[in-house]
């Protein structure tokens, strides 16, 4: 009896390495998007805080759209729209662009909340001590407001990390896409999904716990 050829082969140790590499790509796209998104979001939040009604009428609704439309729709729309205006972006860059804007729209709210958390008397005191507007922002608002909203920011950042799984629909091989590829080959969905889930959990859980302990320490 000759051995039967099979398209499917079982899960091998090398596949674990493949998943680890994919997890690294998840980290890469997340860190990049969160960094850009936080930078933009902080600026947007400052504009929303200082701009009063002008920002509320212009920037506010635009950011609101990114929070009110499912991320997956945003990704599909942008991926199909970019070539129309002559941009040929690969799935990774498309993912970074949309995830960054999405992250910025969420961080903007957080940043504005942080600035509102710093009392007016405190800021007047800073200015009365001879600090310039920017010194006041850097040495008074950032440390106090930043602490107040740090836990929410961690929540947003972890949310973006988890939402980066959606970039798989554009074909970027991050953790979830890699596990789908392996499932197709090995036909062992339960095992592979468990490993992929463990990777996500290992990325997210320690950070969320650390943020929770920081929050407790700062509260007391």
């Amino acid at each position: 009896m000759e051995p039967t050829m099979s398209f499917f082969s079982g899960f091998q140790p090398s596949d674990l390495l493949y998943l680890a590499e994919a997890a690294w790509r998840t980290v890469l796209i997340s860190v990049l998007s969160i960094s850009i998104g936080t930078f933009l979001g902080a600026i947007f939040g400052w504009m929303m805080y200082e701009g009063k009604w002008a920002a509320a009428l212009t920037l506010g609704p635009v950011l609101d759209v990114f929070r009110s439309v499912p991320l997956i729709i945003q990704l599909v729309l942008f991926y199909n729209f970019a070539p129309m205006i002559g941009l040929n972006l690969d799935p990774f860059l498309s993912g970074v662009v949309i995830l960054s804007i999405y992250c910025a729209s969420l961080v903007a709210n957080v940043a504005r909340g942080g600035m509102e958390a710093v009392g007016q008397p405190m800021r007047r005191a800073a200015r009365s001590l001879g600090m310039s507007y920017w010194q006041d922002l850097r040495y008074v608002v950032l440390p106090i407001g930043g602490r107040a909203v740090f836990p929410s920011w961690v929540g947003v950042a972890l949310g973006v990390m988890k939402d980066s799984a959606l970039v798989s629909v554009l074909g970027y091989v991050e953790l979830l896409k890699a596990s789908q590829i392996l499932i197709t080959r090995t036909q062992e969905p339960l095992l592979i999904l468990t490993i992929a889930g463990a990777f996500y959990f290992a990325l997210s859980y320690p950070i969320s716990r650390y943020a929770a302990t920081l929050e407790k320490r700062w509260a007391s």
Partner: protein
Amino acid sequence: MLDYNFHWRPVFKSLPDLLAAGLTTLEIAALSMVLGIIFGLALALIRMHMRGPLKWVASAWVELARNTPALFQLFFFGFGLGAVGIHMSPYVIVLAALSFNCAGYLAENFRGGFQAIPDTQIRAARSLGMTAWQSYTRIIIPQVFRIVYHPLTNQIVWAVLMSSLGMLVGFRELSGETQALASRTYRIFEYFAVTAVIYYVIVKIILGASRLLSARLFRY
């Protein structure tokens, strides 16, 4: 610059289909919220008042729901459980995954709400002759409800947005329907643009209704 001809006619022709699918989206979001509230409340109470295996299960549920991507959870309910012989229709898969996710997030909100009410209130209610059930339903729950009202509203919005993942497991809610229609006509951008508008309107209606309701509920 833009050498793409937009064709909106097929999209507007299938607008009734899209709106009908939008109702499916609302239906699954509402159902998953109901299940999420029931399970979330149970999880919160178990984690606060119980020890042993039941508490471990509840904690594992909450941490897994919060620390892995919703898309991963959807795949797990779809492909993962399919591998061990539990086959569910796309509708049930999406409902199960959404409810699992919502319950995890809501459990933490409820726990925060319960912890904000001082223990002395229970003792006061009990010493006034109320039963445990009465003191919970008449004293504690109304106050907790007030605290979790806004997180609850946000969670409904999240449920609507998250249900869009249904298109990846072949469920014909708003996004799934859009994808099916778009792949038939190749007008991907146009279809998804209209769908984005529908999602935006749905979210705005939910937020508006929630604001009206809160104005009525929390008058005093």
